[in-house]
């Protein structure tokens, strides 16, 4: 199926750059390193719910960190795809023969 495409490769590259910025923000490359987990099993009390909270707190914050890393990777991947697309579009455009006037 043929599609009529309107593409501005310059804007695609800008979008890719913005994606890279977003990736860096997610990744927190400039943020200080994470501290180690300060709590022990009974740090918040001896009850079952206190132990549950300690375990969940550790897991969830670590998972939040994983989330930012995962987002950063996905966004970087999309930035790469956009750049590839921009390059391919530019190449395709260059390959189209110019019609004589």
């Amino acid at each position, binding site marked *: *199926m*043929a*599609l*009529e*495409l*309107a*593409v*501005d*490769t310059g*804007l*695609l590259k*800008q*979008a890719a750059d913005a*994606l890279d*910025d*977003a*990736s860096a*923000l*997610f990744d*927190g490359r400039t*943020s200080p390193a*994470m*501290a180690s*987990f*300060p*709590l*022990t099993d009974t*740090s*918040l*009390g*001896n*009850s079952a*719910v*206190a132990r*549950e*909270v300690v375990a*969940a*707190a*550790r897991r*969830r*914050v670590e*998972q*939040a*960190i*994983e*989330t*930012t890393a*995962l*987002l950063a990777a*996905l*966004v970087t*991947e*999309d930035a790469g*795809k*956009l750049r*590839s*697309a921009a390059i*391919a*579009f530019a190449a*395709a455009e260059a390959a189209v023969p110019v019609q004589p006037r």
Partner: protein
Amino acid sequence: MTTAGTGSDRMISLAALRLGIEDPIVIAEELVTVDVDGLDQWFNQAAMIRVRLFQGADRLSEVDPLLAAGWSNPAPRFAVADLREAASASRQVVGAQVDAADLTGSVLRQTRTLVEGELTDAQEALIGIGWPPGQDLFSWAVDNGKVEPVAAIVTGLTGRLTELRTRNERALADLALPLRADPRDPVEALVAAGAGPAGNAADIAGAVGIGAAGIGAGFGIPMPATPGSGQVGGVDQANLDRLATDLQSTDLATQLMARGVQAALQKAAASGDGAQLLVYESPTSSSQGRAAVGIGDISVADNVAVLAPGVGNAPVNMVDGIGTAVALRNAAWHRSPGDKTTVVSWYGYEMPLGVMNGTPENPISALESMTSAIDDAHAREGGQRLAVDLDQFHQWAPDTARFIAAGFSMGSTTVSAAAARGAKLDDVLLMASPGASDDVETVADYPEVSDRHVFVTSFDEDPITTSVSDVTAAVLGNLIRPFPALPDFTPLGPDPADRHFGSQLIDVRTNSADVSVNLGIGPFGSLTNALTNELLDLEGNHQESNYYAGESLKAAAAVVTGQYADIPIKPGR
């Protein structure tokens, strides 16, 4: 620990031991050694992650206009938008956890101060009756005939410290609830979608003469993946596959519904414990489509609550219903933390006035949607569908699972119609009901539901639950229908809150403030007042969010968890 030092604590501890009282010093030590600073420190890091998620999502939003101007194909914009939404959903999860940790930390910190105060007060009380600190408290009490007052002081101290310990545990439980949500879920759903259809990549690639693995690959519309195994997992996946296909449909109604369901799934997944797409049927020229999203794995549920919404809804805005389902599930968890409760948001019938929430319809079906609000035809047809769906849900759930169907407004008419058609339910909850459908006269007409297990919540201030809605519907019905007949003054069936219906009328009050106006000017003044106040009551009281809030929500959670003794009941109207 006290102002007099640990010596006094030791004396109180020994006295408690000899008096056979729970040692207050052990409780106090546990409470004052809670590591609130550690908790704060840990969640400070989570707060930083929240900021990163916000900033990253914010930057992603700046990509959209660039892509809109730079590439006529919308697939990359959808992909970036979905990343942004996933980041926002994760931020909400993390944010709720950070906020809850903050509140819990405040309570734990305050408790430490209060414990110190209690110990000081108890010690001063002991000194007040003559005890010289440092002397063995119990021996001194025996020698001086003070056993009784010493026992009273130590017992009182133990009691107050126990209360503080309970308060701490409640605060920790309030934190445990948001910690059930995994912040990775919204993003991992996108990763899982990477294995799915690659959108129109092939078309895009073909247009510029390269392989599909190049340009556009990976910009297919991502969709949530959900946990699940066995039979329900297979159905869930089949529904997700259909959803994935509809997300790429060129038909506007189909794509809008699919995106609505996708948003609902993402919100459900973000609430914790995963989401399952239990029903998915595409819209047609005469149907809004059908969908049901379960929060929590139905295959291991102790309680399964199925919620049917009222008029003005459609799968397009299903995300609204997820908010209600999450609220009920959280309330059920608070009431019975050991239970696994699955709440199913069931958008499974043709909801009248769905056009109001963006369901694209042609003029004829739009008119049909308007007129369908004035009788129970759609509700009765929906009741049949709900009965069939419930039968299917029973097959996926454990044999021991309790089943509850709760309907709001026209959804209650639908639930009632399902129960009348033999739906197997442990409990029925009819909220804000305009009528129980013409299929029934009393609770005895529900063949599979025990008569003591039909609950009704109808706020007295809600005009839809009174005869007003029936009369209005009857009059409107005769005006709109092409062949007017004698008005049916109960077109939606009997009021389930009526004492003759035989239901359990829940004794709760509206959460909406009572607002009334006086516009009584001129010959129609009193009529204007009445109509205006009816509309105000409708706006304020007849809202799903009003019924799933406060004491009404707690009562609904008690129905869901089967804690019948905690449901306040009053006589029928």
